[in-house]
Structures are given as structure tokens and as C-alpha cells.
């Protein structure tokens, strides 16, 4: 049995497997097993026992989420399963890999997930820019439908499932599951008040589960090989493998399926090949743009949901963005905060009007027009835009890279203000970050 179940069938030298190839490689075995031998509860129990946690970033236990869906004869119907394929986190491309590389795997995951929660309709909410994914998925869905794996009475089991592919019109906030549901209903993509939680009243007021692509891709393997096997894949408490990614000035940017809990240093050195020659490591956003920076002293932490919390960050999507010593941390923060300000849905004041305040302040600092009080204003915003002060997690997430940058790279900010210019821009080729450059990663 493979140690990289999610990516075993992905071969970049050829296109994705069609239905026949996928089935030859063991695909849809889990669906056959579930529909013929198991009942929904057994699938749910297996997922619960597997310690699978949501791969979208929050890490909520998947089995637990599913178990919130009301079941029984008087439960509301229809129920919905929605795949969150709106991968818009900067630096994140793991779901795209799965969608483009092995489309039948996600379809199989959807069938199993829908079976477990009793959903008769499922949607894949796909990032608008993922055109290749859309084409590949549409074809795979058509194949599955033609083969009786989707539609009415799947494989003679009496289980019905309609699967729709919905391409997003394109907003970061649609990654927030309730904003996604609003978008799917055709209204403004604004997060919803919780409660009611989607599991109780989601799409069109009916019980709905929203799962990430990577999360659902794990399910066929759990059903096929068992929870124990799945847990054993991992090097930590969280079950399974994880697709880690890395981007920035490293030798081999990319994504790798590794045991959950692989240490950061191991990923960056062994798989990403270390820093690009001539660039030093200064920090890393471990799980996309809305996670706190980690620095050299954190590099031996295992990349899993619980280990990064004490270090002040979180796993997020597990796709790392590296900050090297020739890139201006203020500029990086500015780039991110501009993005977050632009992608605010505009619903709550702190996010809508606070993030532009932050972005414009960073803009001024980067342009050499910063003032001493700007540091206090930035810090104030990292406090005021904290969790509980805003309607959803967008603005608090946006503050994560900034608050850690203010801690770890404070001198860079201050120097911008003091010298009234960006030191990186002033001497682009020579300048490296303050203090001794951290040679954390081998330069090969």
C-alpha cells in the first residue's frame, strides 16, 4: 500500500487518468465497498476513527463535522455536500494539483462523503481561474455519470447523487464556507451569521457540509484501507498525509505529499532543495498568507495542526511562503495587506475600512513616507482587528503575517521610517536583512 495515497496516481508526464485508468488503478473500489457493504454510519465512523482533520486550514475533525448533520426520517431534506475548491489562498496550489492530477479521486470522495451524510446533491465550488481544473472535472463528472457512478440509484444501491460543478465568479472570501454558500445561492458573497451552522441550516436553509478538496480526497483511501492504516501514515496525532507546498526563493518550489507532521526543515531542505544560491532564509508563512511568520528557531517544529500553535502560528493550508533576506518584509506585508484589503467582502467595518488603513500605512512606510506613529497604528490595528472584533476570520487572518512581521522584522520597519526609504530598494543587489543573515537552510 502506498505511502502517498493522494498523489500516487498523479503523473505530471501524462494527463490525468480517465475513468478506465482510474478504475484499473484501484479507483472507485471504496465507493463499491461502501455502497455494497457499508452503511453511511460505517463510513462516518471510519472517517471519525481516522483522525482526518479538515485540510482547508481550520483543521476541524471531518468525522465530527459530518456527525452534526441531522439524520433520520424527520430530518430536513435535501441535504447538500459542497466541495470547497475555491483555492484562493496566496501561495496555495495543493487542491489544484489534486483536481487536475486525479479528478476521479475527488469525485469518489464526494460520493463517499455524500453517502455518509445522506446528501443527494453535491456541488464543487471551483475557483474561477482554475480553467484546466474545470475542463478536467467536467469531463470526469460526465464519465462518472455515464458509468452510473453519479445520478440515480448509483451501482444499484438505491443511493442517488447529483453532482454539479460551479465555477466561482472569483472572490477570496468565497473560501469562507458560509460566504461560499451565499455565492452558490446567487446572493452577495458575505459570510453568514453563525449559528445556524451549515450542518444544520446551510445551502437554501438545508443541512450542508462544506469540505475542502484535499479533505475529501482522503476519504476513499480511508474507506478502502481503514482508519488504522490512515493514522499510521502520519507522524503526528492528526491522521494521514498532507500535501505541503513551498514557494519563494528556494531551489525547487513545489508541492509534496508527506506524512502529516513532517518538520518544516525537512520539507524545505530535503524536498524543496534549500534556499536558492545567494539567498538567505529569514522567515516562513507556514500555511498561506493568513498565518503568522515562523523564523529559524521554529524550523524543527512538525507541520501539523497542533504543533505550530504554541509558536504563534498555525498549519493553515500547509503551503509555505518563504521570506528571504533580499526581499523587503515591509513590501511583503504590503503586498499581502493590499490583497486582504481588496478581498474584504465589505460587510463589517473593521475589515472593510481597517484593512485599507493598514495597507495605506504600509504603502507610506515602504515609499519612505512613514512616520513614527505609524508603528503604533499598525500595532493598534493588529489588536483591533483581532478575533471576535470582526464578523469573520478574514481580517484577523490578515493581521497574522503583520503582527508576526512587526515582532520578528521590527528593525526593517523602523529603518524604513528612519531612513525615509526602503533599504531593499535602495541597494537592491547588495542589501540583505538586518542582523546576521540566518543561514538556516543549506544553500546546496
Amino acid at each position, binding site marked *: 500500500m502506498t505511502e502517498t495515497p493522494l498523489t500516487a496516481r498523479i503523473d505530471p508526464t501524462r494527463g490525468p487518468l480517465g475513468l478506465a485508468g482510474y478504475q484499473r488503478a484501484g479507483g472507485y473500489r471504496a465507493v463499491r465497498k461502501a455502497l455494497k457493504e457499508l452503511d453511511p454510519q460505517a463510513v462516518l465512523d471510519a472517517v471519525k476513527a481516522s483522525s482526518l482533520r479538515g485540510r482547508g486550514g481550520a483543521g476541524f475533525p471531518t468525522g465530527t463535522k459530518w456527525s452534526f448533520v441531522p439524520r433520520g426520517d424527520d430530518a430536513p431534506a435535501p441535504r447538500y455536500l459542497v466541495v470547497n475548491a475555491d483555492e484562493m489562498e496566496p501561495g496555495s496550489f495543493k487542491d489544484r494539483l489534486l483536481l487536475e492530477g486525479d479528478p476521479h479521486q475527488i469525485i469518489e470522495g464526494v460520493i463517499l462523503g455524500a453517502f455518509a451524510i445522506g446528501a443527494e446533491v453535491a456541488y464543487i465550488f471551483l475557483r474561477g481561474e482554475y480553467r484546466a481544473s474545470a475542463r478536467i472535472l467536467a469531463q470526469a463528472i460526465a464519465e462518472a455519470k455515464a458509468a452510473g457512478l453519479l445520478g440515480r440509484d448509483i451501482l444499484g444501491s438505491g443511493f442517488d447523487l447529483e453532482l454539479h460543478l460551479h465555477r466561482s465568479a472569483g472572490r477570496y472570501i468565497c473560501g469562507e464556507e458560509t460566504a461560499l454558500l451565499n455565492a452558490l445561492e446567487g446572493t452577495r458573497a458575505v459570510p453568514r451569521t453563525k449559528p445556524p451552522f451549515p450542518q444544520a441550516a446551510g445551502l437554501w436553509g438545508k443541512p450542508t457540509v462544506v469540505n475542502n478538496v484535499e479533505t475529501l480526497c482522503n476519504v476513499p483511501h480511508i474507506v478502502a484501507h481503514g482508519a488504522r492504516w490512515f493514522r499510521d501514515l502520519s507522524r503526528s496525532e492528526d491522521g494521514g498525509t498532507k500535501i505541503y507546498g513551498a514557494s519563494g526563493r528556494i531551489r525547487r518550489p513545489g508541492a509534496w505529499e508527506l506524512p502529516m507532521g513532517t518538520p518544516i526543515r525537512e520539507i524545505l531542505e530535503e524536498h524543496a532543495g534549500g534556499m536558492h544560491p545567494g539567498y538567505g532564509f529569514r522567515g516562513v508563512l507556514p500555511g498561506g498568507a493568513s498565518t503568522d511568520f515562523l523564523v529559524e528557531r521554529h524550523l524543527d517544529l512538525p507541520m501539523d495542526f497542533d504543533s505550530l500553535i504554541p509558536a504563534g502560528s498555525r498549519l493553515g493550508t500547509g503551503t509555505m511562503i518563504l521570506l528571504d533576506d533580499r526581499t523587503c518584509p515591509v513590501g511583503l506585508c504590503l503586498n499581502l495587506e493590499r490583497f486582504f484589503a481588496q*478581498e474584504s467582502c465589505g460587510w463589517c467595518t*473593521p475589515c472593510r475600512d481597517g484593512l485599507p488603513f493598514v495597507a495605506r500605512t504600509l504603502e507610506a512606510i515602504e515609499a519612505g513616507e512613514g512616520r513614527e506613529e505609524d508603528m503604533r497604528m499598525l500595532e493598534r490595528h493588529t489588536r483591533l482587528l483581532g478575533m471576535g472584533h470582526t464578523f469573520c476570520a478574514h481580517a484577523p487572518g490578515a493581521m497574522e503575517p503583520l503582527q508576526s512581521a512587526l515582532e520578528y522584522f521590527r528593525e526593517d520597519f523602523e529603518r524604513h521610517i528612519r531612513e525615509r526609504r526602503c533599504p531593499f530598494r535602495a541597494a537592491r543587489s547588495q542589501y540583505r536583512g538586518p542582523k546576521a543573515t540566518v543561514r538556516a537552510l543549506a544553500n546546496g
Partner: protein
Amino acid sequence: MAEIYIDGKAYQADPGQNLLAVCLSLGIDLPYFCWHPAMGSVGSCCQCAVKQFTDEKDQKGKIVMACMTPADEGTRISVADAQAEDLRRGVIEWLMTNHPHDCPVCEEGGECHLQDMTVMTGHLYRRDRFPKRTFRNQDLGPFLGHEMNRCITCYRCVRFYNDYAGGVDLQAQAIASHVYFGRLTDGALESPFSGNLVEVCPTGVFTDKTFSRRYTRKWDLMTAPSVCVHCAVGCNTQPGARYGELRRIMNRYNDQVNSYFLCDRGRFGYGLVNSEARICRVLRRGGDGVEPARAEEAVRALADRVRARRVLGIGSPRASLEANFLLRELVGPGRFFAGIAEADQRLAALTLSILRDGPVPAATRSRIEDADCVLVLGEDVTNTAPRVALSLRQATLNRAREAAAHAMVQPWKRTAVAQAAGGQRSPLFVLSPDVCALDDVAAQVFRGEPQTIARIGFAIAHRLAEEAPVVEGLTRAESELSESIAEALAGSARPLVVSGTGCGSPEVLQAAANLAWSLTVAERDPALWLALPECDSMGLAMLDAPPLEAAFTALEQGEADTLVVLENDLYRRLGEARVDAALAATRDFFLLDHLQHATAEKARWLLPVATFAETDATLVSAEGRAQRAYKVLPPGGEAREAWRWLGEIAAAARGRSEDTTFDAVTARLAAALPDFGPIAAAAPESHADKVPSRIPRATPRYSGRTAMDAQRDVKEQPPPRDPDSPFVFSMEGGAEATPGGLAPWYWVPSWSSNEALSRFQQEIPGPLRESRPGVRLIEPAPGAARFFTEPPPPFEPRPGSWLVLPLHHCLGGEEQSIHSEPIAQRAPEPYLAVGRTAADRLGLAEGQPTELRIGGEAHVLAVRVHPALPAGTAGLPGDLPGLAGIALPDWGEIRPLPAVPES
């Protein structure tokens, strides 16, 4: 009640409310924007942040939004907490980053919720040094100004306009810090409730254009409690005046009638007060036209005729109860006529009888909104009683609230309720001749002529109560419809039947009555709402006078030779020929009215009277609620209140002076006619001796008092006297101690916008402090109903002829409000509506000129195709100027005319 702790102090709070509403009810200043008492909580502005503690040991606490947090037993919060205060200050600072700070030139300045909240949070200095975002504004039509740069993105506008009022042409557009509230293209906002945006918007984005044109600050207005005169709902208003002009109308809260909202007809229809067409002088018509006359001459002339017992009095459904009563007293009850056509008078009398003699009460606003199943029978409520339609829309959300309660979602979490319910609505059925603005929230709609609608109504009643009469010969579809509606009504606890005089059919009213009554037999708790056309239609019906035709007959038979017409244009009541003939039979003809109209052009004597804004009045709404309105400004020129004229004429006729104060007239009316016994209680506070001190119409900050009339006399003139009410035309008096129902304005320290209303309420959103919301004169008779026994026969179309049905328009379809230029701009041109099949059969195209022969007269009208109109019928907006004398429904002939070549 729950015990909660705010900053360490224990309070009793309603556990069904959120903490923001509780704090405001307790008089604790907590700033907010997006929450609205009628629209609930959505948690968007984050302005009402407070610190919540889990128990008395919890020192850390966490920030929550008060509007999103229930006032559960034992809740502990701190409003004064430094962290919460800091966040609230931060929210204002963010909102202010893009706000233009144009308060000196902004119409909202001085009554701006954003100003109040900014001061309240203590945000003082601008620290943002970056450019502000700017927007292009839109032309939103004649009612509303649009200045988007001022927007603080609280979403109240779209939540009111779309979610609450069912509008579709105002959207939140774009995202992030450029969210834009507007239409897709420039153009008038279509909803008849658009004017509420003026009050719903916490700053100056949506402003009252009619006010902007003659702008003055809130503190420079004279205001007094008034009642809208543009339909029979009786919405409470707060008109404001300056320099002898009425400048605007704002909502006045009455929890039983209109709560927080008005319709556009009521808000913008005040132009008649300032109209060029006002009759300002006493005029006498001689051989060479009209000439000014002295008031005493007119009084004496009429008094002489009265003494000669040759006078008939024609009352009016748009005049006050007191004026109608005094006219009746002046000419004698046997010579007093209702001033409306016989058919209309019969409909009004039937409405009154259904409510007074049957077992089902008329519904208050709160009862309407509480209904769990609604049947609208024949009435185009949005156009005949607009504010009620707004309430009906809210009633359809009751099922969503129930569904939300199952999901543990509190009813005040508006968006969460909608999400939890997934679009479920309480059943509302609309049976009407043409499309209805409530169709979008209806469980089922049915289009038919009044006769068929009545038959279905009768049939439903029979299904609910055996003793109600059977309807023979229903079609299968009609039978199925009646079955499904009967089932829904039977399954409801608080059903509501809505109908009215709008389609001109007594059978429809009878069907509505049978329906409501059958629900009492089925042991439900039904209520009725029956629309009437005018502001005192019900009061006039209660006076029980014969119709206009009877007066004309009496004149023509020589029983009298003099006519006194009170606030009435007879040409709107009957056909031109009929009125002409009757007037030709008069020797003398006195008209008391405020605007020139066709009847005024025939009058021998014109006595200028006060408009609604210049008179005290008691009006009886369609619900049977008597409400007192107070004058906002003194009548100008030679105008006097109609009741004052009539009192003086009576005194001259009898040769003795009487107590002519308003209270005395009201008391005499109550004594003379027992049905009106309680009306003094409609305004118990009006007796000057019962309020702590006189109530000023002018605010404490009223400016220019000593200079306003300086061009006439540099000496300050004493303010006009007002012996008829507790109000004075000045700043002196004790406004603070004023009972909520008499509050001339909503304004308290720190709260200068109308959000100050909460300080005048017992609790949010409850009744006003120390006040009665008017007094209901009509309560159902105890005992079982006596069902109407004769359902109409099936409708039979007539070959070559069309049953022309009355159509109604909120904007334009009312006599008085059309004198407002902005309303006139929004009013449709007169037209003839034909159904799809009629258009095809007659070969009529949209806009084509057509001749309609009806009531012995021919009219040329442009055609509008209304595809929904039932076969064999046509529609005519009979309330529009120029069409008003046509009796509807009636059979008419339609003849296409050749299209006018385009010039």
C-alpha cells in the same frame, strides 16, 4: 424578565431581546449603526462592541457585539470597559476615513446619527492622512438625493429597501471599501417606500429632495404631532414648518399603526400646503368672476341662509370629524349628506357594519404583522393602503422565525433567521384582478374579476363553516383554490383577512366578512383589515349620512336652495353632467376648501380653510382608530380651520357665541353621538391643564425668531396663540416632560437624530411613554356572526362590452398628494388597461389611443396592456386627475383609434 449585569449593576431585561436593545431601553448610551429596531441585528458595523464576562469571577472577558448577544439570565457585560470603548472608537475612526466631513453643507447635519455616535465614542482627531475614496452619485428621481461619499456602509438601506420592503432596484454593489449602494442605472427608485431611506440611513447619503429644496436645519423647524391624510391607514407623522411653509414630513412612531415607516405618498405628498393653487382669501363669485370679500360678509350670508332653513350641507371623507360634525350641526342632521357617491357610501357603510356588527375585530399593525396566514381578497393593498402592505410583507416572515427558533436562532437576528428558514414563508394568498406588489411573497396568487374573487371567498368560508352559504357552480380550478386556501387558514392560529373598497365590490367585502367570521366558527383567532379610500372615510361612515345623490335630488326637488360643501370636489364624486345639473339648481353655493378645483370654480362663496398641517383634527382610520392631529403652523392669509369657520357661522346663525375651542367641539361631538364617545381620549393630553407645561413646537435651538419678520416690523411679534392644544408656537415650555405621543420631535441630549425615539418609548420597540396610540371606536359585537347569505352568480362577460375595474396607484392615485410636484412626476398618465386577449381581439397595441365609452361619457386614453387582467374586463386608474368622476366598476365600450403619427 431576566436579571442581567451591566458594569456591575443589576437590571431587569427582556430575555427575548438583544443586549443593544436592552441597553437603549434602559437609557444606557451605546452607539450603533446597522441594528434597527424593526430590521433587527446583522452584526455588520461592529459599533456596539461590549465586553462580556462568563461569570462574576471572569476578569478577562471577551468582546462581543451587543446587538448579536441575547440578554439571557445572568448575562454580565461592561459597556464602559476600556477595550470595548477603544474598539468602538476605532470603528468610528475607520468609518471616518472616507467620510467627507461635509456636515456644514449636509442636510443631515444636526440630526445625524453618525455625528451623534462620533461624539459619543469620543473620536476627535483624524489620524488617517490618505486620500478618501469617492463615488459618482445617481439621480434617484424626485424624492431622494444621493450622496454616496457620505456612506458608512451600514447596509441599512438595502436591508430596508430589499429585505424589509421587497424592493428590487437598489443594490449593494462592489466589495471592500468601495461597496456602493445604488441602482444599476440612474432613475427613480421604484418602491413606494423609498422615502424611509431618509430616516433609515444614519447619515446623509439618502436625503429628502423635497426638503433639500427648501432646506432648514431640524432645530429651526416647528413641528407637531400629525396624522397622514392621504389614505385611511392613519399613519402618524411629524411635519416640520418654517416661514409659513411646510418643509417636510417625517415618521412619527405609533406602535399600533405605522411604527417606524411611512409610504412615499404620505412622506412626499405635502405639496398642497405650499401650493400655488391654495385658496388664500375669502372670494365671492359675481358676474365678472371672483372678487375678494370680507369674511364677515361670507359668514353673515351663510348664517342668513341657515336661518332660512334652505341649506344642505355636504360633508367630506377628507375633512376632520369635527368639521363634518359642525356642518351637520349647522344645517341639521336631516340636511347633512356624506359627500360621496351612493355606491361608495354603501361600501363604506358595509365596511363599518362588518367591523361593528360582526364578531371579528379590525387588525392593528402589530396584529397584522403577527398573522400566520393572510388572505388578500380583491384589494390592491400596496396602492390603497400602502403601509399595511409593508406590514403584510413582514407577516410572511413568521414561519421563518418559527423555523429559526427550532435552530436556536433568535428572531431579531434578521439574516440568520432568513438563512435558517431557507426562504420559507407564512402563507399569504392574493386574489386580485391585476398583478399585486405582494405577489412575490405570496404562496398562491389568483387573478379574477371581483365577482369571481367574491365567489371563491364565499366558498372558502363555507369550507370553514357549514353555516356559511354554499357557492354553486364553481369551476374545478376555483374549487381547488378555495380548498387549498381553506386548508391553510384552518391550519393557522392567527389568520388575517384583508380586503376593502378598492375594487368597488360589496360582494368582495361580504365574502371577506364571511371568511373572517367562518374562522371564528372554526375556532381560530381571526382579524380583518378592510381598506377605505380616504383619511376620514370611516369617521364619515360613522356619521351615517345619506349620499351625494340624495342631496342633489333634494336640491332639484326644491327642498333647499343653498349648498355648503366642506372640503370636497364634487366632480371627483359623480359625473360632470350630474354635478352641473345639481349646481345649476342652487341659488347659493358655499365651498370651504383649501385648493382650487373644478367645484371651487362653480362656488359662489369660497371660504379658505386650513390644510391638515394648519388644523387640529380628529380622524378615524379604516381600523376605526380615532387619532388627534395638531396644527404644525397657523393657517396663513385669511384661511381658518374648517371647524372654526363652521363654529363662527353657527354662532352667527344662532345669534350667540359658544365655546369654540377644539376641545369643546370634540366634547360636544362625543356627547351628541355616542359612537364617538371615547374620542376625547384619543388625545387626553390635549387639555392644557393636564400636561406639566405647554409643549413648544420649536426646539430649544430655534433660531431667527427675532429676525424672521423683520422686513415687516423690527419689533419681535408675539407668537400666534393656540388655545386649542397644549402646544405653543415658540421655544418656551417643557419638551422634556412631554408624553411620548405628544412629542413634537425626537431629540434628547446626545441623540439629535430621530434614533432618539428610543428615549420616548417604554421599551424598544414598544409603545410610547405615557401615551395612548389613539382610541379604537369600533370593536366587534359579541355573539355569533350572521353570515351574508347571497354569493354572487358567476361572472358573465358581455359581448362587445368590458367590465372596467378600478386600478389604484400609490403615487398619483389620490386627490391631495398629486398637488406635490414630485408625486405628480411619478404619477402615471391616465390610461386604459386591457388584458392580453382583449388587446389581441381589439387589435390594440401598447400606447395606442383608444376611446372608452363609460357612464354616458367618452374618454380618449392610451392603452396599456396588463396581461393579467381577467377576460371580459379592462382597468382604469379612476383616481387619477381627469378620470376621478367615473363610477367604477362599470361596463364600457372600447374602440381603438388610429395611432397618433409621431411628430
